[in-house]
């Protein structure tokens, strides 16, 4: 299908892009990887008047770690860059596990992590990962930059907290206090399908104790679910079978799945339980061996 008619600009600086959004007065949309937006405009679910293509903005394709361990992912860093990332493989197991599970390899060549956060699909994988990691988004508008915690950034299904004249320039994962561990598990019916259910688990350990934990769920509610209560029971304790089971129970209870063509609500809740238990057990085994 053909999209309806729109104007197109490909600015070369963030300031210029923000100016275009401002002039667009709410009728303009940012185009990043286009892997969610282009299908939407083709099906005419969205008909923006102006597309501001950010692919020519210089210096946003990075993902890197600051000296203190803070990880920054620029707005033009593609899923494929993260899938092949030595940095993540080395330092951020939850992100490293999620990257190859997003969409399919060809979509991953274009789609971006930041675009995925902006799109705020309840079935998007990155929002759950960044939530579990307690990350935030840096937005730039006419008045400069501001930082928005992920829990406030994704504020509903397909809704984010950006003003119409703001661009998300990077996603930030705070420096870990302990040793980062964790993972991401997702059931999909076939490659490129969205999650039947998914769980992101991110913990930090010191010795055999958990010092920080985050658990977030994909595809089992109207929005990404932050299973904070489940994560909280882990903190200050070693990862034994009992506490793992407790966290998995609480995570399954935090899920709000609906029965649909991908599976029944009961089944999805069971998946969440299994995923959380599986990831934590694996982490527990590793920390025990290391300690």
């Amino acid at each position, binding site marked *: *299908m*053909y*999209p*309806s*008619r*729109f*104007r*197109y600009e*490909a600015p070369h600086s963030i300031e210029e892009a923000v100016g275009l959004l401002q002039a667009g007065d709410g009728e303009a949309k940012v*185009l990043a990887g*286009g*892997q969610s937006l*282009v*299908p939407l*405009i*083709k*099906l005419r679910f969205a008909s923006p008047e102006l*597309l501001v*293509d950010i*692919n020519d903005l210089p210096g946003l394709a990075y993902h890197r770690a600051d000296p203190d361990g803070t990880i920054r992912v620029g707005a033009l860093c593609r899923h*494929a860059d993260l899938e092949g990332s030595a940095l993540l493989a080395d330092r951020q197991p939850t992100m490293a596990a999620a990257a190859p599970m997003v*969409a*399919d*390899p*060809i*979509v991953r*060549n*274009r789609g971006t992590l930041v675009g995925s956060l902006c799109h705020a699909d309840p079935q998007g994988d990155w929002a759950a990962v960044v939530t579990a990691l307690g990350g935030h988004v840096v937005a730039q508008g006419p008045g400069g930059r501001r930082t928005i915690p992920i829990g406030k950034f994704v504020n509903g299904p397909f809704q984010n907290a950006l003003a119409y004249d703001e661009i998300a320039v990077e996603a930030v994962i705070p420096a870990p206090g302990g040793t980062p561990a964790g993972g991401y598990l997702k059931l999909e019916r076939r*490659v*490129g399908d969205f999650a039947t259910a998914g769980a992101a688990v991110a913990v930090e350990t010191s010795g055999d104790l958990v010092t920080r934990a985050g658990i977030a769920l994909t595809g089992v509610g109207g929005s990404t679910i932050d299973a904070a209560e489940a994560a909280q029971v882990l903190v200050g304790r070693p990862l034994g079978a009992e506490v793992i089971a407790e966290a998995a129970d609480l995570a399954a209870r935090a899920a709000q799945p609906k029965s649909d063509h991908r599976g029944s609500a009961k089944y999805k809740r069971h998946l969440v339980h299994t995923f959380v238990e599986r990831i934590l057990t694996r982490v527990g085994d590793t920390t025990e061996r290391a300690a």
Partner: protein
Amino acid sequence: MALFEEIAAEPSEPVPVRRVTISVNGERRTADVEPRLLLAHLLRQGLRLTGTHIGCDTTNCGACTVLFDGKPVKSCTMLAVQADGHEITTVEGLGGASELHPVQEAFKDEHGLQCGFCTPGMMLAAKALLDEVPDPTEDEVRWALSGNVCRCTGYQNIVKSVLSAAQKLQGQSAADGS
């Protein structure tokens, strides 16, 4: 150009058009396009390169896969204006009927196609893999092609074709090296 009349019949306001220059299969092509024109449509209708197929409206099938600066992308999910200044390779750029690319030859020899609808996309995704990983494992082949759907073959012969193409290409580069 016929295409642009077709999708923009009798516009009431002036239609925004942008001039793009794209290297398509090594040749510089210039066109005036509406921003909403998809790259797949420019290739098929504007440039008459109908080897790029369109099999879905939801970015799922991969029949429209082309190489964008060497990397596979779904050309139905990219605007033609976004290709301005970039390099596109379509299946026509792999090789013609008289001189097949080793990937094409392998698909022919190993029966990697039946109806052929998915084949251009499959071969371009395969070429991109082999450019990066000359000697892939079967798993790596399956992984790299997992964004391309085939309704006919059951994939077995496609995977065989790509593995065989890898051998052909490696044989070639060994011969070139000596």
